[in-house]
């Protein structure tokens, strides 16, 4: 995969994607920034509705339109801003440089075409292969994802595949363009735990070999611990804390991260009641004046309610968006 690049392969700066509905404008993605280096996995965690999926789709400019629109920021792929590209130029980045794996393998494949046909499509597009070479590459891709009997299974339809195999087929499609960035939007949420583990292992292995950069969206901390080098915690459309995975687990700083980690059930602790964060996240249509978490935060001060907190860089390359760390 060439020489070591200097900067991050994907850098997102102050990305804003707003919803435009009859209820008004919703700030679903409200100033998201992060950087992703080759060979690295960045976890994006947060509750449902925090804007994780919309962030992913916005990176490829596949956010639902006209219901939502990217209203600001930059998505830099090796330094070029994808938001400034024409639709046709943008299309050439999809699958080829940045690939996407979706959450639900049961619905991600087109039911009326064979799995082979859908993999061929990607290979033909990105590698220009035809005929028997096309079949060969497709079978290789399936073997790479450890789908058994690839040659025979190319002719199968999605409904003839199990959930785990479908997600691998989606993976084979995504990796057919030899992308350098893979966006995985909760790829294992719909899978059984054992199938999940096997899938993650395959993904890790491919990442190591191809030096793939992965943005891994999940709300499962067990998966984060297993997969991610760094974690970004998202709350109400903003990233509130970024840190190396082990540091985040050992020593969470943002009150939301602390609460989030406390709400993860621990089998060994044998606690009677599960911890739940009090209250609800604010509606994207009525953003809080200050910090979005202030209303639920046990440490909230007066200014937390009045002014949005800045992003505070801390030791070890981590950052927290919280007034408590401003001094």
């Amino acid at each position, binding site marked *: 995969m060439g020489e070591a690049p200097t900067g991050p392969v994907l850098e997102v700066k102050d990305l804003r994607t707003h919803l435009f509905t009859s209820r008004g404008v919703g700030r679903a993605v409200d100033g998201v920034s992060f950087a992703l280096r080759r060979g690295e996995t960045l976890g994006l965690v947060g509750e449902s509705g925090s804007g994780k999926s919309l962030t992913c*789709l916005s990176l*490829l400019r*596949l956010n*639902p339109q006209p219901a939502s629109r990217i209203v600001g920021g930059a998505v830099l792929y090796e330094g070029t801003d994808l938001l400034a590209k024409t*639709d046709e130029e943008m*299309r*050439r*980045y*999809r*699958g*080829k440089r940045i*690939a*996407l794996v*979706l*959450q*639900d393998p049961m*619905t*991600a*494949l*087109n*039911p*009326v*075409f*064979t799995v082979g046909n859908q993999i061929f*499509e*990607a290979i033909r*597009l*990105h590698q220009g292969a035809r005929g028997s070479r096309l079949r060969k590459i497709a079978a290789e891709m399936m073997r790479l994802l450890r789908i058994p009997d690839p040659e025979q299974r190319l002719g199968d*339809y999605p*409904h*003839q595949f199990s959930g785990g195999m479908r997600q691998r087929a*989606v993976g084979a*499609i*995504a990796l057919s*363009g030899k992308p350098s960035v893979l966006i995985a939007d909760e790829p294992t949420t719909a899978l059984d735990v054992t199938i999940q583990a096997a899938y993650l292992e395959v993904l890790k292995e491919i990442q190591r070999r191809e030096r793939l950069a992965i943005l891994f969206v999940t709300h499962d901390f067990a998966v984060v611990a297993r997969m991610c080098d760094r974690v970004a915690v998202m709350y109400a459309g903003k990233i509130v804390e970024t840190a190396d995975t082990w540091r985040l687990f050992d020593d969470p700083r943002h009150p939301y991260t602390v609460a989030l980690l406390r709400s993860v059930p621990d089998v060994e602790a044998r606690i009677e009641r599960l911890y739940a964060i009090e209250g609800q996240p604010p509606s994207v249509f009525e953003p809080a004046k200050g910090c979005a978490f202030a209303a639920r935060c046990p440490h909230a001060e007066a200014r937390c309610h009045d002014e949005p907190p800045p992003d505070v860089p801390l030791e070890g390359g981590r950052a927290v968006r919280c007034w408590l760390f401003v001094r």
Partner: protein
Amino acid sequence: MIRVVFFRLMQSLVTLLITSVIIFALARTSGSPADLVLAPEATPAERQAYIERMGFDRPLAYQYLIFLKNALQGDFGKSLRTGQPATRLVFERLGGTLRLATVALLIALAISLPLGVVAATQRGRTWDRVGLGFALLGQSVPSFWKAIVFVIIFGVWLRWLPTSGVGTWRHYILPAVTLGWGVSAGIVRLLRSGMLEVMGSEYIKLARAKGLRESVVVWKHGLRNALIPVITFIGFMYGIIIASGVVIEVVFGWPGLGLLAYESTLWRDFPVLQLTVLLFTVIVIVINFLVDVSYGLVDPRVRGG
């Protein structure tokens, strides 16, 4: 599979039987053929003799059973008007109707597939309105009126197209467009709503994420899925085309089953009318069966496995 086919066959036979009872009884409510077949100056005695000779004085149920017994042997009687076997008269006309209905259906598909897709992808914009407006007009304006207006515009004023009869491909245009337009509405609406649903699905998102051109995403990944319910609908519409074809064949003087049905109704030509209607029924049954079979071709999930 064999059980399914057998079941469908039995079902079809019951349908045919019921249709035959209805048309047999209904035809006879229009009056006696004696009024039309015999000369106006025929004496009551001559009239009575005719009725007895034809068996019209027997109870209706008895007449029906005789008809059924003969029909099972392939004998549908002779035309009261011309004396020719009903089967010959009817089968002569079958091709004309099937050709017209098929051309009409093709025209309907050629118009409504693009309109339905474009209406969905341009939702709320000009083409969406054009598509729905066109469809609504075709559906709500009665076909006999459309036929007459077309004749006036293209036949009388512009003199572009023949207004009656058969012969060249140009004779197909007016009747087929009239028929096809009428059924386009259903396809446009069904396809539009189907496309709107399909285009919001995850596999469309994935197809786009692959980097496929939007045209491939819409016309391959989208349309192929949205077509599944449309295919079923086509069987239903084929029946509508054939049924509304009666009016169109009369207006355009198209020598098909519809015109024959019309004529034999006027002449109280019971044997011909009965066979024509039964043949309509058979056509609709066969088309529906073919649609059910083709369903498996379009949707791999139905094939099982």
